[in-house]
């Protein structure tokens, strides 16, 4: 493991672990992994200064595939775990990753409050519009008329979330959308999100070749968000609502006070901490 001052140039491969992903061949999550590791390599963040916290689901396995600190957490609870870590170790770069079901259904409440607190976290939601690990059920971002799951043969009939709008309404200060078919551009957004002080939300459209084979068309549907980023929430929400959900880019970025570590910033020892629990 490198340490600051080693003058070792880290390549994106150095941020990957020896554990081989068990994602389906062709899964967009491979590209998201590449984007994260490319962003970290470009920023040359020392491995021991970065943690990647994830929830449960196909995409949440990503923590094991990187060589930074990782914690494969509880379903929907990646954000509270990351919040705790950031509160305790505000010197660390804390990334959070998970799927659309993990982040918007099981962890939906944690998502809106993480946005509201605007803590300095970078959250990458790998959105494949389906629960893949449990073999293809509709998620909160699945279109209401998707009929391919036997659980909802006539579709859910329920409107899907617009994750970017939800993040904006809840107080996130950096909102972007990338695509697994363009991992280099996604890496740019992740690097910008890491450098942004506050809660950065990056929705990564990630194809699921197994349960959503129609995602093969996404490469023809995504387009660049041409209007550019704004720090005006009214402008941002107007654009996001009008958007078809397939445009990519940094949509919103604003300097908003970020919740920081409480107290005077001094770090206690483990013995101090344990003494508080003495009976």
């Amino acid at each position: 493991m490198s340490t600051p001052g080693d003058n070792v140039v880290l390549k994106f491969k150095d941020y990957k672990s020896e554990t081989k992903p068990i994602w389906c061949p062709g899964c967009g999550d491979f590209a998201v992994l590449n984007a994260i590791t490319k962003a970290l390599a470009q920023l040359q963040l020392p491995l021991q200064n970065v943690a990647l916290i994830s929830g449960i689901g196909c995409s949440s396995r990503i923590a094991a595939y990187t060589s930074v600190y990782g914690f494969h957490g509880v379903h929907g609870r990646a954000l509270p775990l990351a919040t705790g870590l950031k509160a305790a170790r505000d010197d660390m770069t804390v990334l959070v990753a998970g799927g659309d079901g993990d982040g918007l259904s099981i962890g939906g409440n944690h998502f809106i409050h993480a946005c509201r607190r605007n803590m300095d976290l970078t959250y990458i939601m790998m959105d494949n519009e389906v629960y893949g690990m449990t073999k293809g059920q509709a998620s909160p971002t699945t279109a209401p008329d998707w009929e391919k799951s036997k659980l909802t043969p006539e579709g859910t009939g329920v409107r899907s979330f617009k994750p970017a709008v939800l993040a904006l309404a809840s107080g996130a200060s950096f909102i972007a959308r990338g695509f697994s078919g363009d991992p280099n551009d996604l890496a740019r957004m992740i690097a910008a999100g890491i450098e942004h002080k506050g809660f950065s939300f990056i929705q990564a459209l990630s194809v699921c070749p197994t349960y959503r084979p129609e995602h093969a068309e996404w490469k023809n549907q995504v387009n660049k968000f041409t209007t550019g980023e704004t720090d005006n929430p009214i402008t941002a929400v107007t654009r996001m609502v009008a958007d078809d959900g397939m445009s990519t880019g940094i949509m919103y970025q604003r300097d908003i006070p970020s919740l920081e570590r409480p107290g005077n910033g001094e770090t206690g020892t483990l013995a101090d901490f344990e003494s508080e629990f003495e009976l």
Partner: protein
Amino acid sequence: MSMSDKIKDLDTFLVYSITLEEEAAERHDELADMMGVHNNPEVAATFRKLAHYSRLHAQEIRDHAKGRDLPVIAPWDFEWEGAEAPESGDMSGVNYLMNNAQALQLAMANEQRAFDFYDQIGRESQVPEVAAMAAEFAIEEKEHLDLLRAWMDKTDASVDEKHFDFDLVKMTD
């Protein structure tokens, strides 16, 4: 704007070329790992071999660059024709049940794009040393393509029943 217009000096050309080959090696390794994990050892071995060739080519280009102070270009600042380097390929056709012939078709498409990249620069670059080196690399890519074609000719291209996922039919019918 064509690649030859975007790449204006030899150092930049070398960075593009090294990145193209390194990313091809990484992608082929990634594909080999995918196939290995999904119990398709035959195709995994093919992709591993292709990764090895890409690494050899990357090393060859790094040797050309020895002693030069190459610029650092962020991944998102490369102006490739597509979203990724030309030899990294399109992952949308990848399947865990793919056979060797399909793997070789993917590899040939990648090599063809790499050839087109070098060939265009070799023919149209206004910088003589860039044009000369690109033409040299284009010849090598052409040789790789010929080798892959010969390999393909010896490969059974038929798709048998084991390359059929009954689970997916049940999921979607």
